[in-house]
């Protein structure tokens, strides 16, 4: 568990963070999201003390990072930077092994470990182990960056806008990879991004920052449905515009009057994607929304109307 206690960071003529209090649970994929200059990266870097806060404490599993040996604690924290930041003078294998070498692992132990991790991120060790970073695409380089962070099997991985420089396809692939790895591994991930789509996709929970102040903390859906203030609502406005809620389905004229025995009640502001996810596990489920009930066929019909709308747009 990571605990930020009243973290304040002041620079000569600005305050980057103002008394941030935040708790992140173990094994959580927690996203810090906000526009640039909001202080999210600064907050992330207080964890491995690349930034030393002016006031406040950061506790990892109850231990203040200011009191632990810096080099040792960093050796047990994975770190993924923007644009991979691989050392251009080293091969993929050497890059990935930096933390293991710092930990004093023997060469014979390092090699199979890195090869295993390269496979985990879908890079063939035979093809990639001896390449130099200059011979990798942006997405491949960032996969190696992830391997480097995973190498020492850390309990905590910090990711600082790792995919911001990637093309949309690579970005989506790597987001899937992170979700997969998070499921497989027993690791807390603290992920910084300015991309709200990315935040919504990845986060178990997220914290929204703006001007060094915490705006809202919660699960994606909560933040979308109940934005705490105008800034949060505005920040996610674009996403909201493309969201289809059950309210919209009802407004389009779908749904039947309630009958007895319909099973599950969900909020009208729920997105149709969440509804689709629920239907996936139980295709025959009938959900109750306000005074109406909706079936799987209603979802399909609603989606079909969207198709018609698109056509009309074209015509």
């Amino acid at each position: 568990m990571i605990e930020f206690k009243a973290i304040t960071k002041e620079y000569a003529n600005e305050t980057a963070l103002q008394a941030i209090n935040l708790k992140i649970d173990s094994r959580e994929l927690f996203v810090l999201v906000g526009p640039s200059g909001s202080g999210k990266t600064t907050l992330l870097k207080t964890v491995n003390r690349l930034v030393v806060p002016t006031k406040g404490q950061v506790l990892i599993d109850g231990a203040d990072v200011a009191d632990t040996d810096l080099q040792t604690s960093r050796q047990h924290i994975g770190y993924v930077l923007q644009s991979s930041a691989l050392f251009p003078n080293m091969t993929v294998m050497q890059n990935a092994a930096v933390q293991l070498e710092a930990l004093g692992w023997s060469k014979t132990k390092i090699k199979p470990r890195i090869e295993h991790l390269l496979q985990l991120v879908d890079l063939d060790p035979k093809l990639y182990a001896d390449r130099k970073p200059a011979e990798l695409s942006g997405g491949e380089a960032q996969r190696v960056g992830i391997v480097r962070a995973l190498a020492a099997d850390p309990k905590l991985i910090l990711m600082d806008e790792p995919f911001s420089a990637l093309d949309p396809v690579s970005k989506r692939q790597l987001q899937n990879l992170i979700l997969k790895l998070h499921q497989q591994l027993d690791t807390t991930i603290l992920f910084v991004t300015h991309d709200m789509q990315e935040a919504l996709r990845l986060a178990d929970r997220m914290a929204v920052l703006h001007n060094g102040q915490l705006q809202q903390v919660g699960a994606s859906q909560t933040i979308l449905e109940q934005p705490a203030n105008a800034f949060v609502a505005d920040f996610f406005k674009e996403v909201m515009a493309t969201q289809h809620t059950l309210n919209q389905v009802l407004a389009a004229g779908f749904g039947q009057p309630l009958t007895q025995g319909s099973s599950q009640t969900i909020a009208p502001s729920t997105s149709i994607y969440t509804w689709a996810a629920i239907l996936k596990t139980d295709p025959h489920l009938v959900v109750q929304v306000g005074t109406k009930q909706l079936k799987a066929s209603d979802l399909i019909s609603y989606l079909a109307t969207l198709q018609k709308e698109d056509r009309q747009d074209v015509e």
Partner: protein
Amino acid sequence: MLNETIHYAQANSHEILVALGQHIEVAFIATLLTIIIAIPLAVALMNHRQAGEFVLQVASVIQTIPSLAILGLLIPFVGIGTVPAIIALVLYAIMPVFQNTYAGLTNIDPLLIEAADAMGVSRRYKLMRVQIPLAMPMILSGIRIGVVMIIGTATLAALIGGGGLGTYILLGIQSNNNAALLIGALLSAALALIASWLIKLLAHANFKKLFIGVATLVIIGGGAFGIHTLMTPKTETITIAGKMGGEPEILINMYKDLIKADDPHINVTLKRNFGGTSFLFKALKAKQIDIYPEFTGTVLQSLVKTTQPISHDPTQAYHQGETALSQQFNMTLLRPMAYQNGYGMTVTQQTADKYHLKTIADLAKHPEFRAGFDPDFYQQSDGYPGLKQAYGLHFNSVKTMEPSLRYQALAQGDLDVTDAYTTDPQIKKYHLVLLQDSKSFFPPYQGSPLMLTSFAKAHPQVVKSLNRIAGKISTQDMQQLNYQVTVQHQKASVVAKRYLQSHHLL
């Protein structure tokens, strides 16, 4: 020109190779020292920007000091020879190596440094595996600039007895020997290019191998030097040095032959082309050399302080100089040889015949002659101004020109009369006529061996050997010998020995 150069190179191949070796040795040691100083300094200061900038400023200031001035400043502290040369070269080369290393280390992408820090690597690992390898291209280009600079500047080492290719450049300039000049210049340029190319190759080499390679070289070099020092027998060695040029080289070879003829067990080392007068005189005072040939005129004009006017009688001038040296410097000037290597006036054979010119006084009747003089001669009181008074000379047209060019100008008919050094081989080469100084106006310049009095007392046998050429070798003989060495490119040692043998001095 090309043929002359090739001929000169063939005739002097051994000496040229030795000079090349010296040049490489000096440059290599200077480069190693520069690297050992500049790179760790840059590493130590990379996180102290202010100190780093300060060192950079100091190094830049050192670079603005002319290299000759640095050499001059160093002589009182470290004497002459290769040591001050290497120190001066290192002082020069530190700037580019330090600057590039510092810039290379401080301009690494901060994201990479952040990554290294975040991985929790040790400072040593970060330095050796990240910072230095990433700065390596900059460091190597700094070393390349430094090495090229060192090889070029090392030619100045010749001025202070450091040897090397500069010997040939200076020799070429002083005796108008284009072959020597070309060889010195071409070889040092080629050396710089090759070194630069080798370092470029190193840029692609493995860092670890590079380090091991350099370390091995240093160990082998150091070991060889140590063994060489230990193996060299500690018998008495007499070091004889000579100034730049062919004539001093002939003389010191004669000294060696004379000493060895009387005592074959004495070890005699010759240091030819050792530099200018003041370097040799200081080296003698500091006991770095034992003997060098000096001129009575030079002693009186520039080495000792005299209260009386300088005598124009050769014998008196010798006694004046000898006494002053003994009193002021505890030095002994042995009796001089016969020849005069002083100023003279010269015309072509044709002019001499046409106007029946025999003495300088005969020139007074020909104010229409076009004269060309060495700039010093034109100004000094023992040159043209004094001559005008003593002989009542006056020329309507007087040009000053580079001394090495005046003989050729005379031979080509561009001039009618010039000043001359009496033993210059060009006099023979162009068949020029030296006019007699019937009024003994020019101060005498007679060559004789100069040494510390303590050395003379400890080596009476050496003094006796050297005295055998006192009063020998006429001005014409010396001209002839100089001609053989500097124009015909015969070896000075051969020329010297042949002369001594044919005159029954050996």
